[in-house]
């Protein structure tokens, strides 16, 4: 998903790479069952890209930095590489009786690469730092559910909200309390049913004392507690990791050294894999995806897997563009899109047509929530549009950010709509992602626009609440439905995960009636590797599972 810069602005980490965990194979693309094979030791090279920010877990929301962060930090929770199922990593236990007061016990005996212990304080200090407004950490909003978050934020306006009277009132979150060296408590401001699931996200990593002494130096050479440690970061060229001999966890890697070679585009990385100059690329360029060329280029050395990503097309808020207000018009447009053919011809089958708003890889997924409205049926679409009184505007527009590979599918989608409904449809490119997002955020963009969501943590809640709840941070279409909000609040209060999921599914079903956005497809990640390595597996987050990669 790297090419598709996520719509969800800062939200959503593109990164969560799971280290460790060595279960099952995630292939659907023809890799052999070399899962357990390979020797220990040696070094590999993998495709990398330039991290946007210094390598601090709470300030990394994109894959380039995220892939590195996830290899060098362990969290309380570890997500299973294949199923994304959360399991305890650093956490001894996470207990709650009311979904609001949590007691977290940390395992003893774990240390950072510099030899200092990982204690309850390492977590509490790190989370406070992330939340504190003046620190401007891009993942700070993950601390939002914790009590006292509002007081740690700057309230001023303009370029520097922290100036003068806008300065944050509190430096720490009132909801975090250290009980003893290895125990701390978390109190949330509202009930949260899936807090433990969230704690595997990199923003919740612990940080050593050294970080707080000099955050800037730490960002260039982070000290982590994960299976690997950072040896060198040669800007624009490579990031070198080596095995952390102080790591005692269950999810260690096999190879001794991992080098992220930084590439500007996926074509050159792919060619290097073909020439055995690079061991793994986590992105196959479009030119090799055509006609499954990569499968003949890299026989038995490729894999494909569904990941927690969904692409949608969102309608501008009604007050911005009233032409799309009628849900019937929205449903008609959705039914006019031939998802399967676009997927086959434009994406070469590297997507999966969406049947709802929640990715199939998460707990709580229910198929066919969108029903017939996400099934291509030009005749019914046309009838539905006529029933709604036809399209009033001049033409349908579908905007996209032109700096990533969205032109082809938006054009194909528009052609499909045009042919089925007989209404002109134009795909409009906006110069880059930043401009595109600011037009959406300022509510200036009319018509339809592309949106995407990569899960932060594997939960159905993550696909609903941040996007469709009234006033939510990524609610680009200003969707508001009291019944939907009520179901989400009830679900968050459920202590039984199954009951909570059921409520979330009921909420999702409401979306089909209102159609705030059109589900397009779920993401898949395709990887290829050289003939030197074995055991390459893709995690549910679309990253390389470093616990199983080994040299042949």
């Amino acid at each position: 998903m790297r090419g598709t810069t996520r719509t969800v602005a800062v939200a959503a980490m593109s990164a969560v790479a799971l280290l460790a965990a060595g279960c099952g194979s995630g292939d659907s693309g023809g890799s052999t069952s070399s899962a357990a094979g390979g020797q220990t030791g040696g070094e590999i090279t993998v495709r990398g890209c330039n991290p946007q920010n210094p390598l601090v877990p709470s300030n990394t929301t994109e894959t380039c930095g995220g892939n590195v962060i996830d290899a060098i930090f362990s969290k309380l929770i570890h997500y299973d590489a294949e199923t994304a199922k959360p399991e305890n990593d650093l956490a001894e236990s996470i207990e709650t009786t009311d979904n609001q007061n949590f007691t977290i016990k940390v395992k003893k005996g774990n240390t950072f690469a510099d030899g200092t212990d990982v204690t309850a304080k390492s977590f509490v200090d790190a989370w406070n730092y992330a939340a504190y407004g003046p620190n401007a950490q891009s993942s700070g909003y993950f601390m939002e559910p914790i009590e006292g978050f509002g007081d740690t934020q700057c309230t001023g306006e303009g370029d520097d909200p922290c100036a003068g009277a806008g300065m944050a009132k509190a430096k720490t979150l009132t909801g975090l309390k250290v009980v003893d060296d290895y125990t701390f408590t978390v109190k949330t401001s509202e009930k949260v049913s899936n807090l433990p699931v969230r704690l595997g996200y990199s923003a919740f990593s612990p940080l050593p004392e050294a970080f707080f002494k000099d955050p800037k130096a730490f960002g260039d050479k982070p000290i982590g507690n994960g299976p690997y440690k950072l040896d060198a970061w040669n800007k624009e060229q490579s990031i070198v990791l080596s095995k952390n001999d102080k790591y005692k966890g269950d999810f260690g890697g096999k190879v001794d050294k991992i080098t992220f070679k930084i590439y500007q585009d996926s074509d050159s990385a792919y060619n290097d894999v073909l020439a055995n100059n690079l061991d793994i690329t986590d992105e196959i360029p479009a030119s090799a995806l055509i006609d499954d060329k990569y499968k003949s280029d890299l026989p038995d050395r490729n894999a494909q897997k569904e990941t927690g990503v969904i692409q949608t097309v969102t309608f501008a808020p009604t007050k911005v563009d009233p032409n799309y207000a009628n849900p019937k018009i929205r449903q008609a447009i959705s039914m006019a899109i031939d998802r399967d053919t676009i997927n086959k011809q434009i994406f070469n089958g590297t997507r999966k047509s969406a049947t709802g708003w929640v990715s199939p890889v998460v707990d709580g997924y229910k198929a066919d929530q969108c029903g017939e409205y996400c099934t291509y049926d030009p005749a019914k679409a046309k009838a539905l549009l006529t029933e709604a009184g036809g399209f009033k505007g001049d033409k349908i527009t579908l905007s996209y950010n032109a700096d990533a590979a969205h032109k082809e599918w938006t054009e194909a989608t528009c052609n499909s709509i045009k042919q089925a409904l007989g209404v002109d449809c134009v795909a409009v490119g906006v110069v880059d992602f930043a401009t595109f997002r600011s037009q959406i955020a300022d509510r200036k963009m009319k018509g339809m626009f592309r949106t995407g969501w990569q899960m932060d943590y594997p939960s159905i809640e993550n696909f609903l609440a941040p996007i469709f709840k009234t006033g939510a941070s990524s609610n680009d279409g200003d969707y508001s439905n009291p019944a939907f909000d009520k179901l989400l609040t009830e679900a968050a209060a459920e202590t039984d995960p199954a009951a909570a999921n059921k409520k979330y599914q009921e909420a999702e079903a409401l979306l089909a009636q209102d159609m705030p956005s059109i589900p397009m497809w779920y993401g898949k990640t395709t990887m290829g590797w050289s003939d030197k390595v074995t055991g390459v597996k893709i995690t549910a987050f679309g990253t390389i599972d470093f616990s199983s990669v080994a040299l042949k």
Partner: protein
Amino acid sequence: MTEAAVTEAPEATSRGENPVDAGPPRSLAGDAWRAMRRNPLFWISSVMILVFVLMATFPSLFTSTDPTEAILQESRALPGQGTWFGRDIQGYDIYARCIYGARASILVGLFTTIGTVAVGGTIGIIAGYAGGIVDTLLSRLGDIFFAIPLLLGAIIFLVSLPATNNYLFIVLKVVGALVVLGWPSLARLMRSSVIQVKPNDYVQAARALGASPFRIVRAHILPNAVAPMIVVATINLGAYISAEATLSFLGIGLQSPAISWGIDISRAIVGLRTTPHMLFFPSLFLSLAVLAFIMLGDAVRDALDPKNR
């Protein structure tokens, strides 16, 4: 002596291939036309250009298929599978798009040539005729624009102009960029031919008779100095067509919904290893169009250059 000179005249004409035509005086253009029509290169290139111009003005003469009609199911179909040239990645008919793509290229080439000839020609004449400080100023101004690399300058120019969906405006944007950066070469050429023609006796005579500078330039200098510029402008027309394709290929020239060979080449590049026909046909049309104008330019040069006779 006078008598002798008169009697010598018929002898002189008899050296020509066709003494019958010797009667009326021959103009420069007439001479050139005679030379050109005997040149097969001229006829080949003219026919090609005529076909491309017809394509640009009446694309429906060549195809009845709508170039924006996408049949996605048949995406990347090979030539012969229902269509002459196959289909591209969006399922558009490549043949229809090649035909419709001619318009953008011909328009850009033609407008840019007209623009550079008008701007460069005028500035060249003024600089060459006026001389002195005016010449120095205009020549240095030309040098400044000449120093900007065409592609780099055009990218900056096009990116800084607002985006639009109006076809004519998109074309004019590209034309504007190429004219702004392309005029100095023609201005230099024009200036040097004007300087060459200016000291001639007939110019001095016209001046002695009291003709205004405008009249001197229009009636005496321009007709005798314009030939090299016509040659270079014709050859440049081909070069501008390929410059347009380059800019469109980079995604900053013409943009969808405009149809252009450059755009089609750019979107076909992903299929280079698997379905190269998507790349081949627009490239072929582009090459042929550029070749046609360069060949015409060569034929015109051969005809206008007296040294070749």
